[in-house]
């Protein structure tokens, strides 16, 4: 195990002794803009070990739900409880969110990763070790000194994912990270996600891509009009779902309302 990996294990042990982030419980969650309820009374319990896929049509509230789970938005009503962690901002410190469009600083790839690392209490040696490790893991070593914003979209998304992973989050939330990427870039991102999951990181992924959901998902949460219409194991969802919306989604047809 690398030094970075060993440090991670020590941190995980220390953290789990304090407060667990799981189960994640969402209770009667509402998010309104004006009179419109964009998230309309969601109840959900998510366990740690499974890779969770959030699906649904455009405007279903997937990205909103992800932001509410991460504490970037304040719910109009209801609550998001990450295990025993009393405050969502404390939980957020142990999570990372990868946005659909990567938001990278106007600096080199290395500087982007170093910026994130400097936010934690690492020694300089630890920072450099983690930096080297993540650059290798994400196949970014050859791009490390290039300005992040001149990279292709797939490479930029890999940088964003590497920046999230370099902090070794316990939970990784992803908002359609592979949308409009070519198959090679998608595969590279998925490999990184699977590797992170093997190291113990909880994955919560929003996607429209049925193939990706089948490849990565252990369970699927299906949203429609701000409500959960199905929450089931991935196998059951794709093969035996009784919900008309889920059935339509699997067959690639328009949602039944």
């Amino acid at each position, binding site marked *: 195990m690398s030094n970075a990996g060993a440090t991670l294990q020590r941190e995980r042990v220390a953290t789990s002794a304090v407060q667990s982030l799981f189960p994640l419980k969402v209770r009667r969650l509402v998010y309104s803009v004006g009179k419109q309820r964009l998230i309309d009374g969601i109840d959900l319990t998510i366990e740690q070990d499974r890779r969770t896929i959030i699906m649904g049509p455009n405007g279903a509230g997937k990205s909103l739900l992800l932001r509410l789970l991460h504490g970037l938005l304040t719910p109009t009503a209801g609550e998001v409880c990450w295990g025993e962690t009393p405050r969502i901002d404390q939980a957020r410190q142990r999570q990372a969110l990868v946005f659909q469009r990567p*938001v990278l600083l*106007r600096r080199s790839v290395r500087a982007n990763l170093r910026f994130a690392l400097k936010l934690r209490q690492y020694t300089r040696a630890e920072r450099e070790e983690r930096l080297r490790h993540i650059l290798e893991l994400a196949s970014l070593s050859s791009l490390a000194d290039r300005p992040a914003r001149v990279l292709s979209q797939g490479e930029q998304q890999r940088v964003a994912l590497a920046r999230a992973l370099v902090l070794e989050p316990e939970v990784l939330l992803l908002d359609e990270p592979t949308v409009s990427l070519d198959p090679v870039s998608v595969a590279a991102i998925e490999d990184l996600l699977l590797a992170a999951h093997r190291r113990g990181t909880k994955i919560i992924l929003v996607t429209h891509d049925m193939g990706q959901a089948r490849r990565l998902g252990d369970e699927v949460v299906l949203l429609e009009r701000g409500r959960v219409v199905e929450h089931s194991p991935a196998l059951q969802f794709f093969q035996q779902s009784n919900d008309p919306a889920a059935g339509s989604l699997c067959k690639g047809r328009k949602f039944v309302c």
Partner: protein
Amino acid sequence: MQDFGQAFALALQLIVSADPALSEIIFLSLSVSLSAVAIASVIGLGIGATVGIVRFPGRGALIVFLNALMGLPPVVVGLLVYMALSHAGPLGWLHLLYTPTAMIIAQTVLVTPIIASLSRQVIEDFHSEYREQFVSLGVPLKTAVAALVWDARYSLLTVALAGLGRAVAEVGAVIIVGGNIKHVTRVMTTAIALETSKGDLALALALGLILILIALSVNATVSLLRLSASSRAYV
């Protein structure tokens, strides 16, 4: 027309021969304006970054006020600074009236709102792009401000150069608080006004040419900086 031709030839001669009187005026002009822009940048950037990032009651009104101050008439600023620095004024004990320092103060007052208002817009645009990512990463406010200023450095440099353009071309305020005293507070714009009124068009024209050259250089520098930044994808 012949007079104008002669004046133009004489002006070029003064520039080419690096006439000492001309050089002195140019040096004083630049040192006053650059000092004012440096001070205004520190103050204006601080105000701009704070208003651009922090949300507080009355912020909208403050933005409108800052924008309005961009159009401050120089003579009014000159008058206010004159009143403050005159013997009867609150800062009269400093004995700064008719000194280059008074001119720096006046230009700082003129340029600070410009830098504050424009940098507020720049920082706010960058912040709206980075905000969610910074919250997600748990970036402390101080680090966020430093990162925003660094990433917006090319745009902010353009803002500072816009301030320099305003300062170096300004005449109303510096003539009131500086007095246009030869070898002491005579700068390019005040000298042009004086020499034109005296009929010495050659020196006025030479100074005018230098001013235009400075304005062109500032604009060219801004364009080059932006070009260089965009070619390296830093904008």
